[in-house]
């Protein structure tokens, strides 16, 4: 419960952040920092149990079929990372108010920072791998937004960071899917407990590789490290919080979690050790070369993360313990350094290490704090960085992955640490020694300094007082490696190997510092970090490849796309013919009239194809429609025939409006003429003929060979009794399948909406009389009332005889169309009939009828008989009528207005 409350609290803070920012401006950060502390306090209530080794959990089923649940779990390792996320988060948020400038968008920065805090907390509290993945991606996305929020110069780095980290996210997801497929669960504790099962399968190695890729991208290990220095374009709070203290530690967290499974596996250990140490040394070399303080810190972070990864790779209890402690120590001193660099940048206007020399005289407090954090980074006693560095040495020396591994690893770690010492001291030297470059500087307000001060103080106090951390560290290490006995940290180990290595580090580092001019000259030969350019090149090439692949399927014409389903149909029919044997039943014989209708139909269809004028084609198309109508009448479908007849007439009217202004002649269809035209005709014919044959064969083979369908029989039997209607087709529409009809009229309503939007710019054409106004005007005045009366009659009788809401509305549509034709551009059927109210009323009536019967205890849209033989379905039909009429009015209005488009 505590865990849910904590996450909900973080979400609440994120929602509140923009509101607070509007009320308090940039000072909102203090309130949010207090919120972070409160959430930390809330989680702290579970502290005693966690330290006693009892994880707090909360769980709800999510996707039970896949063994996925919404599980939150707070154990020692999670608790350690919670301290980092919330503690550093609170410091950063209380640093923001003095750091942010008025022109920053406070609301969105605070929202994103707080949401990130929530996401990161979720990541370390997730007790289910799928949930962990969700939060993992959330942090990547928020990092993207926070980097990108600095404007145009942030775009490329933000995209690089996003692409690299989400690529790792995909690897993680794949690993999770493999694990779920093997174990049937994604519960983190269950997966870690199933160590032997995971290791026994060949998939175990794949999962390990994928987890490593995910962690390396997030924690900026070679060869993915390039995104982190680029991310330094972000504002300092973002660099300090996301890209030094927490988000980049998510990879470390993941590796620590999976250490429980993979500790001691040679592939896992060697990969982490080798990549980690290479990253550590390369990063440190690059950091030593940098003069820009933020870039220096970025490469330093890469290097320190490398040490952590390598220590996890060693996998012994001492090494893991060192990694856990150093994670904490690094977050502390690196966040401090970032905050101080931000202050120096704000005050001195420069981040160049050579520009800030002699800062001690003008900004003594800032310089002192920088010194403390810098010494902690350099690993100098008695700061916490010293304790963690010593334990790292001890850990590396314990490596046993190959004979002599301990010596090699320790030597390389000493090399990396000596480089770290060298640039740490440079930082110190820059702040303290040398001539004061800018004498007019002064100390910033204590409010600005306080967060960095607290963190620096913690670095200083927790060195000698490291024993305070032991209970939490012990618990965290036990969660990583349940079988080991975690060592206790203390400042003074006695004269041990580590102390010797520390001494060597400091000696070597001092040499590097003293000989800095020569070192700089050598470092100039170090190849540039070209990872970002290579990545850009790779991603550009990928985009080009995509374009090239897409171009194969890019056509200027519509026919290649339309041809595909036709080809598929023909192939399907061919395959069907191959396997079809022995058709059941006899085909019903055709009647004499059928042959007449079909003969005329074939002639009309041929005319449509060959007709060379638009108007002629429309006429021929109308003939086809009328012949199909006749066919429906002979087939015993009067309602269908009536509907089609009306639709054909209205289509002709709409087409007449729509085709105005189109070329009146169509290209002739013939086999002579230019070769391109000819080949088009041949191509179309070559597909059309088999398609027609296939359709004919399919119709012949698959229809009309069986008894009446059970559903049809049922409707014929019960329709009158159940609904009181004798027109079975219409009872299906309004009584039995009312929901389908409701869906159908909703489609029509959206057509009307679409037309209204399409013609939004149309205005009635200025008073131009319609060509036939003198004839059609009186005709309309005479006919319209008759038509409307007829349509109402059709509506009322629809339940028993051919008719109904659709047909009635189409008939009324005739009156509207006639009005439009007679009135030309000046016609406004909308005077009396406004489409929007008609459509809205229609939909509301239909839905209302359905809901009203629900109130009476029936299912939605059940027809209920009322007095006088009337039923709710008549009311439903009235709704259909109103809506369809509204659509007709829209169509006619809009098309008749369309002439008046602005040029």
């Amino acid at each position, binding site marked *: 419960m505590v865990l849910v409350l904590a996450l909900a609290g973080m979400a609440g803070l994120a929602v509140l952040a923009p509101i607070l920012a509007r009320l308090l401006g940039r000072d909102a950060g203090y309130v949010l920092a207090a919120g972070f502390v409160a959430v930390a306090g809330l989680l702290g209530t579970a502290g005693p149990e966690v330290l006693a080794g009892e994880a707090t959990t909360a769980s709800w089923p999510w996707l039970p079929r896949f063994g996925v649940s919404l599980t939150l779990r707070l154990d020692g390792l999670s608790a350690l990372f919670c301290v980092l996320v919330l503690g550093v988060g609170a410091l950063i948020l209380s640093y923001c108010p003095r750091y942010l400038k008025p022109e920053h968008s406070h609301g969105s920065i605070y929202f994103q920072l707080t949401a990130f805090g929530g996401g990161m907390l979720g990541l370390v509290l997730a007790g289910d791998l799928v949930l962990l993945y969700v939060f993992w991606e959330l942090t990547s996305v928020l990092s993207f937004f926070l980097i990108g929020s600095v404007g145009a110069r942030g775009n490329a780095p933000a995209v690089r960071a996003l692409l690299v980290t989400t690529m790792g996210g995909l690897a993680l997801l794949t690993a999770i899917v493999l694990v779920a497929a093997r174990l049937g669960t994604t519960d983190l504790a269950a997966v870690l407990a199933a160590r032997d099962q995971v290791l026994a399968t060949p998939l175990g190695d794949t999962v390990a590789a994928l987890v490593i890729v995910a962690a390396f991208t997030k924690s900026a290990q070679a060869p993915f490290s390039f995104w982190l220095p680029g991310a330094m374009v972000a504002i300092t709070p973002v660099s300090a919080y996301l890209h030094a203290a927490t988000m980049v530690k998510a990879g470390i967290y993941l590796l620590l979690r999976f250490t429980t499974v993979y500790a001691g596996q040679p592939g896992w250990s060697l990969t982490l050790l080798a990549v980690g140490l290479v990253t550590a040394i390369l990063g440190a070399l690059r950091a030593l070369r940098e003069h820009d303080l933020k870039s220096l810190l970025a490469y330093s972070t890469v290097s320190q993360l490398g040490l952590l990864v390598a220590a996890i790779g060693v996998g012994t209890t001492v090494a893991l313990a060192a990694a856990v402690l150093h994670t904490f120590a690094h977050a502390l001193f690196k966040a401090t350094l970032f905050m101080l660099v931000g202050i120096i940048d704000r005050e001195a206007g420069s981040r160049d290490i050579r520009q800030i020399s002699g800062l001690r005289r003008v900004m003594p407090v800032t310089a002192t704090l920088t010194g403390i954090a810098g010494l902690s980074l350099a690993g100098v006693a008695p700061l916490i960085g010293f304790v963690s560095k010593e334990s790292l040495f001890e850990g590396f020396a314990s490596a046993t992955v190959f004979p002599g591994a301990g010596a090699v690893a320790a030597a390389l770690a000493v090399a990396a640490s000596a480089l770290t010492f060298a640039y740490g001291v440079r930082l110190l030297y820059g702040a303290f020694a040398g001539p004061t470059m800018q004498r007019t500087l002064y100390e910033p307000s204590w409010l600005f300094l306080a967060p960095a001060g607290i963190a620096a103080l913690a670095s200083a106090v927790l060195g000698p007082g490291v024993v305070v951390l032991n209970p939490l560290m012990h618990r965290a290490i036990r969660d990583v490696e349940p079988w080991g006995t975690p060592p206790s940290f203390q400042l003074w180990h006695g004269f041990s190997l580590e102390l010797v290595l520390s001494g060597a580090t400091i000696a070597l580092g001092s040499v590097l510092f003293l000989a800095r001019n020569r070192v700089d000259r050598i470092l100039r030969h170090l190849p540039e970090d070209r990872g970002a350019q290579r990545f850009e090149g790779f991603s550009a090439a990928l985009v080009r490849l995509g374009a090239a692949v897409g171009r194969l399927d890019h056509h200027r014409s519509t026919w290649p796309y339309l041809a595909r389903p036709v080809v598929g149909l023909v192939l399907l029919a061919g395959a069907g013919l191959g396997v079809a044997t022995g058709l059941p039943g006899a085909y019903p014989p055709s009647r004499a009239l059928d042959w007449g209708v079909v003969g005329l139909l074939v002639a009309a269809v041929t005319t449509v194809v060959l007709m060379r004028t638009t108007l002629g084609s429309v006429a021929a198309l109308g003939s086809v429609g009328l012949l199909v109508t006749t066919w429906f009448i002979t087939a015993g479908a009067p309602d269908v025939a009536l509907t089609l007849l009306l639709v054909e007439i209205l289509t002709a009217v709409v087409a007449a409006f729509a085709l105005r202004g189109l070329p009146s002649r169509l290209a002739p269809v013939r086999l002579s003429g230019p070769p391109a035209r000819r080949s088009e005709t041949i191509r179309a014919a070559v597909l059309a003929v088999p398609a027609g044959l296939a359709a004919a064969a399919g119709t012949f083979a698959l229809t009309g060979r069986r008894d*009446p369908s059970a559903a049809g029989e049922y409707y014929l039997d019960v329709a009158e009794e159940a609904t009181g209607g004798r027109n079975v087709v219409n009872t299906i529409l309004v009584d039995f399948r009312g929901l389908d009809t409701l869906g159908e009229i909703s489609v029509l309503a959206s057509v009307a909406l679409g037309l209204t939007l399409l013609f939004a710019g149309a205005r009635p054409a200025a008073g131009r009389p319609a060509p036939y106004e003198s004839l059609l005007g009186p005709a309309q005045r005479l006919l319209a009332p008759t038509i409307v009366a007829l349509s109402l009659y059709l509506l009322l009788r629809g339940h028993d005889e051919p008719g109904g809401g659709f047909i009635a509305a189409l008939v009324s549509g005739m009156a509207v169309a006639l009005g439009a034709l007679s009135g030309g551009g000046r016609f406004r059927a909308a005077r009396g009939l406004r489409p929007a109210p008609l459509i809205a009323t229609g939909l509301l009536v239909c839905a209302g009828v359905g809901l009203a019967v629900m109130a009476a205890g029936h299912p939605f849209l059940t027809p209920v008989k009322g007095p006088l033989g009337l039923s709710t379905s008549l009311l439903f039909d009235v709704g259909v009528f109103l809506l369809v009429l509204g659509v007709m009015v829209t169509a006619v209005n809009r098309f008749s207005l369309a002439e008046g488009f602005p040029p």
Partner: protein
Amino acid sequence: MTAAIAVGALVAAGVFLILGRSLIRVAFGFILLGHAVNLLLMAAGGLGRRGAPIIGPDGQPPPSPADPLPQAFVLTAIVISFGTTVYLLGLARAQRRGDQSDDAGSPP
């Protein structure tokens, strides 16, 4: 047999038109294909029984009544395809402002 011939002729003509260059003819082709599908649905109900499915005053359906279910399908299909035809014509109309061509190959 006649239904098969009618469906075949409508499909052949419809396919021929939609594979052409003229946008108007493409629209007409789709109308023909719509007719073809409606005929097919009706034929699926069985053309041996052709009595209109309306219950007489005596409470009995006509002798050899047609299957009402495909008719309800086709009725719905006709109204919906009318809606889409109108919308397609609207699109063609709105798109043509300033562009007098009727070439399906030219990008909008």
